[in-house]
């Protein structure tokens, strides 16, 4: 009993320590954000007169309202389209069992391991030739394509697990493929679709490489891309930079806290099936 109790204590201590280390950078950023802008405070130091105004100032100098709107526009263009076309493809590969579905699926699977850096250089010239550099389309269109491997894979896994009898029954009763998809299978795919949507929203929000390569104007980028530009410009003003970073990462934390259950289980299933 004594040993067991000691284990409980040391186990609890380990967890507390790791939680502390995990939260430390956020805490340090928070206390720093409250110092007079332009100063060099200590890493973790609560100021005697907190400058809450730094958040307002960061909001203005980073043009946060515009950037926020830009990110939302990009998410609204990417996520619904990606979800719909991935669901259709997953349905075809998982339920309809089309001819040549296996090699086609392997082709999508190939993209799962692909680092974005592998295609970023030709992508730049492709987007340039389309005349889309420095527009939001330069992020939106490639991102839809780059999400396809995971998204198709994810929806296929869902449709594979749906009993085939549902489709057969509907067929016998004369449903066309289109009706079968929209009226029977899409309503049943709710949980898989919403998990996918949440994941892709956060990934879009956090997308950095595409933003800095394809779009020069920070006000047309994603949040993460804009933060990169903000760091370039205000990197020496640590309190202001901290305040700006906190403003930019807060929405992702809110999404995480609200959808936590969804989020974790989505990532888990996603990577396990991967």
């Amino acid at each position, binding site marked *: 009993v004594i040993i067991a109790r000691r284990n409980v204590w040391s186990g609890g201590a380990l967890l507390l320590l790791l939680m502390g280390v995990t939260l430390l950078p956020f805490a340090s950023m928070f206390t720093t954000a409250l110092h007079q802008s332009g100063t060099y405070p200590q890493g973790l130091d609560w100021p005697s007169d907190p400058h809450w105004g730094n958040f307002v100032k960061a909001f203005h100098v980073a043009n946060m309202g515009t950037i926020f709107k830009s990110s939302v526009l990009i998410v609204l263009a990417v996520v619904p389209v990606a979800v719909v076309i991935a669901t259709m493809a997953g349905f075809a590969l998982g339920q309809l069992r089309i001819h040549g579905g296996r090699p086609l699926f392997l082709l999508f699977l190939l993209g799962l391991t692909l*680092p974005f850096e592998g295609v970023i250089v030709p992508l730049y010239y492709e987007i340039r030739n389309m005349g889309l550099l420095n527009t939001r389309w330069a992020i939106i269109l490639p991102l839809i394509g780059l999400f396809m491997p995971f998204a198709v894979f994810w929806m296929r896994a869902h449709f594979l697990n749906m009993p085939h009898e549902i489709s057969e029954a509907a067929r016998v009763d004369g449903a066309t493929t289109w009706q079968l998809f929209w009226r029977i299978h899409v309503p049943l795919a709710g949980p898989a679709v919403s998990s996918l949507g949440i994941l892709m929203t956060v990934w879009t929000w956090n997308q950095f490489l595409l933003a800095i390569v394809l779009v020069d104007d920070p006000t047309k980028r994603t949040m993460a891309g804009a933060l990169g530009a903000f*760091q370039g410009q205000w990197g020496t003003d640590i309190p202001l930079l901290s305040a700006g970073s906190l403003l930019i990462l807060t929405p992702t934390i809110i999404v995480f806290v609200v959808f936590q259950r969804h989020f974790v289980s989505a990532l888990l299933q996603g990577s396990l099936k991967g």
Partner: protein
Amino acid sequence: MSETTTSSSRAYRAARGTSASRALHVRARDVRLRGWLFVLPALAAYGLFVLWPLVQSFKYSLYRWDGVAAAQWVGLDNFKTVFSDHELLGAVEHAFELIVFFSGIPVVLGLVVAGVMRRVASRRISSVAQAVLFLPQVVPLVAAGIAWSWVLSTSGVVNQTLSAIGLGGVTRAWLGDFGTALPAVGVIGAWVLLGLCTVLLLAGMSKIDPALYEAAQLDGAGPVREFLSITLPSLRQEIGVCVTVTVIAALSAFDIVYISTRGGPGDATMVPGLKIYQLAFFNREVGLASALAVVLMVLVLLCILPIQWLTRRGEES
């Protein structure tokens, strides 16, 4: 929506019973063709913005091109450069060193933490700890990079703590020191990935049959023995997933390095992703950048395929 479903399924049931089987037969072939229409939009997006650039990467890698003037065919010269230039080789080497931190720490520590959560911690604490440890996975890597640059800076928390416990002698700018910069970047990666691995491994542990442990205890096995002969083998698939995801993250690291060190000091933290970016968009060496990109993609596959093969043998894919 459920209303539509029930009413339409009722309609189906009512209409059932005609010459269904023949119609089905005819339609089956039709459906398989029409199924391709469902894949087409996804395939188009994937082809246009992933497969096509991928092919182009291979093509560019065989040319010398500054992005403006006419490209000049150079065969495999760019690849020879990648494998002989010590700056480029160094970048690849750094990527492999990062694996130690990005994969090693999260998987080993993840196993310990998941074990602790499972066996000794109360359910409440463990679910809070899971959420907290998972947090770095959600915030933009850029923000993580900025936060850690500050934590590891001269006046950051790490040095503050070291000074407070009387180790003021070892304080330094961790990301600016040739000896510590790469491990410091590695620590940031470990911080990002620990939560993901912990949660994954924990989910795997909860699927292990408790009877196995009871049997082991009856046989007098200690905790270490239990871990080695039950926990570890049962988690083969989960460990495989953790290693796969983290190795890809290590080899293709970009955001964190870009923000925290830009590859410096000197080339101490240069990684392939950042080098590709610099070569293509600042040095105007599009061909060489593409050759490095091809090498990077091949390396990722060479690392991932054996891991997948080892951890998935004998399972349905």
